[in-house]
């Protein structure tokens, strides 16, 4: 396969590319899904291909092929150069990649147990047992449980001398129970919603979830929600947000907002731009003093963990918000150059046939000092919400509205009645500046988001978000109709 990569680079250079990189990706995936007692999907999926990216006359071109022959690779490289020339003819500033990238090495996600070494029978049996336990609860109309395992072997090389080989493992799983009754539909998920929890890890990650042990609880909570009181309607109150929902809050209101390609307008017509414009770097209070946010690609089992990004830049850690102050972006080589900075290694493509984009790595809220019980006891009047049900945010990442699967009233420092249909809404910097407490590392978990959409043609990115429960003051809740 190395010969195909070398051939792609040679052909691109011979046809006039000033810079070229090639990425050969072989992906194996296993999917298991059980739906209301039926083994809905067992699928084994393979994909292989090579993508060639070039800079010609100062402009980008990209082409790819799934035919692994020298002739096909030559064609892909030639098409990439032709496309680059067409781009150059349209004008625009020439691409500046900054300093050359010459990384070399081999990386593999450390796993205790290779998930592809576990018998499919054992994986299916786990889901059937979990489904059976959910079925014990009366009132559930639909049950779903799933597992996914991914092994991506990727070789990257460029004309500057970089050559890196990586094997990335991911394991994911989750369950969901839906209850219907009395004109109401309610859902509970575990370990989180979005279908599943996922991380760069092995079979041990699935075992630690204890899916069967949580099945009846999850189903019972879905049924209980049918008759729970509604979230108070359109009031401002204190909110304690559970870890998985804080993870999504970071993803939407910080992670996307700090993507420098969005800031510079590259995604303006699709995903949008960002309120965190370049003039705000080191000059903007994003949150309160207890808000510290880091982007890293080294904290396993975060889904943003790897050895090098898809430009060959090494994995690293970058402060984003320090004591509330905005101090860093997610950057590519090209976008970093526009600010006189260097890439912090965040370019990833979802497949061999997609162009690398700036993607969140593991964008995390650093833990604070609080025990969760103490935080609840310290809250006179409020609501605890967790597990995302809906998420929406405007194109500059200011105005957001989230719904959660579950809520609990807090009165005089104690958790009270169960609440359904909880929503909260706000403006990003006002919201993070209202944060007055973050729970400590014993409550901190690395949540995985395996379905982050960005780019055209569309790409689903895999991102990590470390988070612990946190408290926010004066938040508007209960917007439903």
């Amino acid at each position: 396969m190395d010969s195909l990569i070398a051939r792609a680079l040679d052909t691109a250079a011979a046809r006039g590319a000033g810079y070229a990189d090639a990425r050969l990706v072989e992906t194996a995936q296993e999917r298991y899904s059980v739906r209301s007692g039926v083994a809905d999907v067992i699928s084994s999926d393979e994909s292989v291909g090579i993508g060639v990216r070039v800079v010609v006359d100062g402009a980008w071109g990209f082409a790819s092929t799934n035919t692994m022959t020298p002739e096909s690779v030559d064609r892909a490289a030639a098409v990439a150069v032709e496309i680059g020339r067409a781009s150059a003819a349209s004008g625009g500033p020439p691409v500046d990649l900054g300093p050359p990238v010459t990384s070399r090495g081999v990386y593999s996600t450390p796993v205790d147990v290779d998930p592809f070494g576990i018998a499919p029978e054992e994986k299916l049996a786990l889901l059937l047992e979990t489904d059976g336990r959910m079925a014990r609860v009366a009132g559930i109309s639909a049950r779903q449980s799933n597992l996914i395992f991914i092994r991506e072997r990727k070789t990257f090389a460029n004309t500057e001398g970089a050559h890196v080989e990586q094997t990335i493992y991911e394991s994911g799983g989750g369950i969901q129970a839906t209850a219907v009754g009395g004109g109401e539909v309610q859902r509970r998920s575990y370990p989180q919603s979005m279908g599943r929890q996922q991380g760069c890890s092995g079979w041990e990650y699935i075992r630690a979830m204890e899916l069967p042990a949580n099945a009846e609880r999850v189903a019972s909570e879905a049924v209980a929600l049918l008759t729970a009181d509604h979230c108070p309607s359109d009031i401002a109150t204190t909110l304690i947000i559970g870890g998985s929902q804080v993870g999504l809050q970071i993803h939407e209101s910080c992670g996307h907002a700090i993507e420098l390609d969005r800031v510079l307008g590259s995604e303006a017509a699709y995903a949008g731009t960002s309120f965190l414009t370049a003039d705000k770097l080191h000059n903007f209070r994003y949150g309160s003093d207890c808000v510290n946010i880091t982007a890293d690609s080294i904290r396993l089992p975060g889904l943003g963990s790897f050895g090098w990004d898809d430009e060959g830049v090494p994995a690293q850690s970058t402060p984003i918000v320090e004591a509330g102050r905005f101090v860093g972006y997610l950057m590519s080589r090209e976008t970093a150059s526009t600010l006189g900075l260097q890439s912090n290694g965040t370019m990833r493509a979802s497949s061999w046939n997609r162009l690398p984009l700036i993607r969140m790595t593991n964008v995390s809220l650093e833990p604070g000092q609080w025990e969760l019980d103490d935080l609840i006891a310290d809250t006179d009047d409020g609501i605890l919400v967790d597990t995302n049900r809906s998420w929406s945010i405007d194109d500059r990442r200011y105005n957001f509205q989230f719904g959660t699967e579950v809520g609990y009233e807090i009165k005089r420092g104690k958790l009270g009645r169960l609440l359904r249909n909880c929503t909260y809404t706000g403006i990003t910097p006002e919201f993070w500046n209202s944060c007055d407490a973050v729970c400590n590392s014993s409550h901190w978990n690395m949540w995985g988001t395996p379905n982050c959409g960005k780019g055209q043609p569309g790409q689903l990115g895999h991102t990590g978000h470390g988070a612990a429960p946190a408290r926010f003051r004066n938040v508007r809740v209960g917007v439903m109709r």
Partner: protein
Amino acid sequence: MIGEHAALTLLERALSFSAAQHTDIYLSSQDLGLTRFAGNAIHQNVSHSNVTLNIRAVEGQRLGRATTNDLSDGGIGRAMAAARRNALLMPEDPAFPGLPEPHPAPRVASWDEPAAACPPQLRAQMVGEVCRQGAAEGLNTAGACRTGAQEIAVVSSRGVRAYHAGTFAGLIVTARSDTSAGWAKGGSWRLDGVDAPALGREAVDRAVRGRNPQPIPPGQYPVVLAHYAVDDILEALSLYGMGAQAVQEGRSWMNGLQGVQAMSEPVSIWDDGASPDGWPLPFDAEGVPRRRVEIVGNGVVNVPVHNTYTAAQDGAASTGHQAYFTGPPIASNLFMRPGDRTIEQLVAATRRGLYITRFFYTRLSHNKGCVMTGMTRDGTFLIEDGEIKHPVKDLRFTQSYVDALNAVEGIGNEANLVLNEVGFATRVPALKLGNFNFTGATV
């Protein structure tokens, strides 16, 4: 492009590798050229092609799956063996109806050679025209121009033989000033169905007229929705309830409303994958012809769309809506019946309300009634005394889409095709709604 003969020959060869009792194979192929621009210049320009075989192997009442894009004998043989192995792992499913019997699918002409063969230079020309228009008004334009071809084919051991090739062309334009943005989007299976200069003018005009928007308090307003916003309503109603799986599990907005007049009398919505007025896909991933399904007729909620599995649960026939290899049935070629008003007449009939170009980042807040939340974007204006008065800052809404379509006061006389990137198309008119619930404002 593989071509019909080569695609079916490939699938026959793949079928010969199968040791399962029954097998079907769904071939999905795409050749895509896409040019993205921002800041009035091209910044991404790509070409890719891929061919994927999606295999289902059946042993008794058990079905296993595998996919591969390795079309060598070794690659196909591995995938076939994996699909059968996966089937043998499955518990028997008494409800599994087996693979579908063959039914001839209609041939629909949706091939346009200029769209299939569009070179990057021509896409650059289309984009260049839009960028020049934006620059002339001091605006920053961004967007994407895509062209290409898609092939689908299904061959099964039960005798299904189906092939379709279609093309696509699309252009998205956002024009931005420091205080405003304008939007336009065009799509067709024909390259000449995408009028780049007209789309540029539309986006630029909205951005120019949208400069210096005024804040407006959230609340209930009558609205005139451009067809882009109506596309969002139909997409959401599809994703959250027009498929039979959601109805069977009780989580669709259709539950409890079938046979009920839940929408205004002029509202009729149907799905028709074989219509050349949409983006035709005449059969689904199971090789079943896509039938026209009347989902809402004169405001009365009718029936959802089916795949083979959900149809068997209801004792019905599949309507050919297994849109993807896995997942539930989806209505993905939707039409709304146009009315008799021009957009100007819809605005003129509004004493005080809002003109909405499009919605953004809309998500389900609650299944019942399909309550959605999202933002307005790229051209929101106040209407007073039947005229567009001035631009307003974008608003958040939280609104039942079913209730919204039960407050229709006028329907535009033109239905426009909105072709989305993931193979989802609607042909929809503009609408005037008597009431829409805005619950927040952005900065």
